[in-house]
């Protein structure tokens, strides 16, 4: 009894300290929103806020889950911010500082002046009063109001929200939630065109056929030009468990080649049903087995399980890898010169595959920008001015195209021409008049855009992304591209997929899914670790018997950690999303 009393006294004392130290600041009580001024939605008839002169330099603290740079923005983009808005951006990046910083900053009651969070975290922060209600001001921001529908649609999905605006989705497009505007999809098999045509461009029937082609490539070219050993596959473990998918990152991406999409612990199949990741008939097993077969044929880089992302990237740009599967990987190899020489990477279809792709991120990619609840009135005005500017065509050109006159130029015909398409990769020195420093070093470290690169630039009528400029496409019409088009009867990879009916586009919806409870997050974490560890060992298994024994052992261990409970939870959560997607698809029809 005495002990109990003591414990409870201690706990109460601790609670008192906790409330003293860790309480959130008093919510700002502006609970009477003035009706939004609907007339300001036309961007042309109000003065853009970026034109306002601010004479005091202001530092804005930005908590940013997308950033992989921590500290004050420097270089040419810092100069852009200073010239346009007289602000300085101080970025706090949990990717650099570690996830625990989220816990300390939220309990201190001030996450940052501008915050960029994942959706479910954002909803939690709104619930705990860390995010400011921006309803009154956002309707006066002409550039943001271009995305009025998307912003309102998102804010309706915040649990318990009654018509107020808290957050702005990022990577929104001005296309439509059902369309797919890009020329390539996020994950598809890509081969070096010179090595592939050397083999006579054989038809690839299935994954075994792909392995045959890759094995032939490795036999013809066991090393790159410098004599370093080359492998068709070079994997890396750093990304495992990321992007809301359990399992090895490199494997889960490849499951989209068969129309399946991993949603945490479950796989969404093309027939809109869910099955656990551990289902032997689903694609995670299939792809893992494929990689194991590749490994047994000596096609997988033996350092795959122990090297980090930087090492893997170095191999990609050294020509030591013969198969790419992420669309961004080509950035490490393809250049104008290589496209002209015909030794660049390009999509090569495998006959039995059905490619899954998420449509244009009309409603945003999932992350949300908000304003911290503890900013004062003056700072608040400046922040809103920044956010509105950030969504303006001028700012989008800085973000997606770089500096006019340096990375691109506007021709006499008014069309945009790329000047240096490898400025980022080569970290070109920027002339002093634009801020100096390396181009990549001074690149926008916010690392997330309100307007996606595939959106149409109202100034040109073409997407912001340089790769989709008509001038760029004309200059890229190389011999290799012509050969490819002739061989597969389509202008671009996505054209081929659409033509042959092998592209499965999943509509973009606006939805906030419930986050994990503490119990579920522990189960998820422990299961994920078991799954990842076994998966890597399975890739390096000696034979099928060992592979299958490991798979069974893994399933047993995961069940012991509560995997079935996790599957039930995820099925329920992602059914909500699935339902919304079905409705979106039907209404578009």
């Amino acid at each position, binding site marked *: 009894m005495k002990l109990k009393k003591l414990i409870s006294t201690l706990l109460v004392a601790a609670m008192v300290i906790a409330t003293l130290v860790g309480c959130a600041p008093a919510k700002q009580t502006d609970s009477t929103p003035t009706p939004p001024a609907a007339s300001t939605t036309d961007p042309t008839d109000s003065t853009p806020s970026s034109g306002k002169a601010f004479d005091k330099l202001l530092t804005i603290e930005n908590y940013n889950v997308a950033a992989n740079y921590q500290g004050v923005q420097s270089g040419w983009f810092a100069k852009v911010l200073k010239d346009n808005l007289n602000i300085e951006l101080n970025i706090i990046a949990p990717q650099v500082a570690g*996830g625990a910083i989220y816990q300390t900053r939220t309990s201190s009651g001030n996450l940052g002046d501008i915050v960029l969070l994942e959706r479910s975290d954002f909803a939690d922060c709104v*619930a705990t009063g860390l995010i400011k209600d921006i309803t009154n001001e956002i309707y006066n921001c002409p550039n943001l109001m271009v995305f009025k529908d998307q912003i309102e649609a998102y804010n309706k999905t915040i649990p318990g929200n009654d018509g107020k605006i808290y957050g702005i989705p990022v990577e929104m497009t001005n296309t439509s939630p059902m369309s797919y505007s890009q020329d390539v999809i996020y994950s598809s098999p890509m081969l070096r065109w010179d090595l592939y045509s050397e083999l006579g461009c054989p038809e690839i029937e299935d994954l075994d056929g792909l392995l045959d082609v890759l094995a032939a490539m490795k036999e013809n070219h066991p090393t790159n030009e410098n004599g370093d050993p080359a492998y068709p596959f070079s994997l890396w473990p750093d990304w495992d468990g990321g992007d809301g998918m359990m399992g090895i990152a490199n494997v889960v991406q490849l499951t989209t080649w068969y129309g399946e999409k991993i949603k945490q612990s479950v796989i969404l199949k093309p027939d809109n049903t869910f099955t656990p990741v551990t289902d032997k008939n689903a694609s995670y097993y299939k792809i893992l087995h494929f990689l194991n077969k590749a490994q047994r044929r000596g096609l997988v880089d033996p350092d795959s399980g122990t090297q980090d992302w930087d090492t893997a990237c170095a191999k990609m740009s050294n020509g030591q890898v013969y198969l790419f599967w992420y669309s961004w990987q080509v950035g490490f190899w393809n250049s104008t010169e290589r496209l002209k020489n015909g030794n660049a990477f390009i999509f090569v279809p495998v006959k039995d595959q059905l490619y899954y792709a998420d449509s244009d991120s009309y409603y945003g990619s999932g992350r949300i920008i908000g304003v911290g609840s503890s900013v004062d009135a003056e700072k608040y005005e400046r922040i809103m001015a920044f956010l509105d500017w950030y969504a303006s065509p001028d700012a989008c050109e800085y973000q997606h195209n770089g500096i006019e006159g340096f990375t691109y130029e506007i021709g006499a015909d008014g069309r945009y021409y790329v000047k240096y398409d490898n400025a980022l990769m080569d970290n070109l020195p920027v002339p002093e008049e634009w801020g100096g420093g390396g181009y990549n070093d001074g690149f926008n470290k916010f690392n997330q855009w309100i307007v996606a690169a595939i959106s149409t630039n109202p100034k040109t009528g073409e997407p912001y992304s340089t790769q989709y400029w008509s001038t760029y496409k004309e200059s890229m019409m190389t011999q290799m591209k012509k050969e490819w088009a002739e061989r597969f009867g389509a202008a671009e990879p996505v054209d081929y997929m659409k033509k042959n009916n092998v592209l499965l586009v999943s509509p973009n919806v606006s939805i906030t899914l419930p986050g994990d409870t503490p119990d579920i997050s522990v189960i998820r974490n422990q299961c994920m670790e078991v799954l990842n560890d076994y998966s890597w060992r399975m890739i390096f298994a000696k034979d099928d018997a060992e592979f299958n024994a490991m798979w069974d052992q893994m399933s047993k261990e995961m069940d012991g950690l509560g995997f079935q409970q996790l599957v039930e939870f995820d099925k329920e959560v992602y059914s909500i999303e699935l339902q919304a997607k079905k409705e979106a698809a039907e209404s578009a029809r």
Partner: protein
Amino acid sequence: MNLLKDRKKARSYREFLYILPFLVLVAIFSYYPLYGWVYAFFDYKPPFPLSMDKFVGFKWFKSIVDSPTKINQVLKVLRNTFAISGLSLMFSWFPMVFAIFLNEIKSKGYRKFVQTVTTLPNFISWVLVYSIAFSVLSSTGAVNSILMGLGLIDTPKLFLQSSNNVWFRMWLWLTWKNAGWAAIMYIAALSGIDEELNEAARIDGASKIQIIWYITLPSLLPTYFVLVMLNLANFLSNGMEQFYVFQNSFNKEYIQVLDLYVYNIAMGSGGYSLSVAISILKSIVSLILLCVTNTLSKLVRGEGFI
């Protein structure tokens, strides 16, 4: 009489003030953080502050062992912790012997050189140690290149990926990094040995080995014992950086020690409450170990070390 008493009192106040700053520091940095232990008794998820309706009692403590798989996992982690700590305890004499031999080197320049070279790795962070290990031991690293060049193997050996002798290899890395640094304490103790003892022994005709055995070693033993006892109390803490950088899916079964386990559980997706619960258990066990070794020390040597 009264004056004398007052003066004594004033002195004791003054002396209390001397230690006050240290008491405050201890309170802030050692006792205040203990308040974080409350998280183990709640369903905690940032950014929601703790509230009484999320109080769950001992749920997280029970959840450590509530299924055979979990018990198995915890046992494995404990096995690794004990094996790795045990191994370093078993070889804890190594820095002492190293210091003695170092001390015997007559050429001063060479001795300083050896000491500097062996101490330097202590200042390299584990992340860098791993990148050294990777460039030496990867499939295209120096070791494999030499072995393949000599024709001893035809396919590269995956040293970093193998789970064979992980504990011993970890001990080797630790020794490479720490031996020189750990020897400093003994070198200091060596210089404290009365030179007369050595001279007397030499006059009596003792050989070098005899001097080491009968004079140097016994003089170092008290230092050695204190360090061993402190290590024993720290038996459950192997630190986590080393194992964090060297862990991969292939060796995790043998490399995951308690500290790393806590980190892996908590940092992945915020299992804060569970990891606090494990840390509490660890602290309690460490405290018990400290008391036990202190009592042992009192029994064996007649004096404790705390």
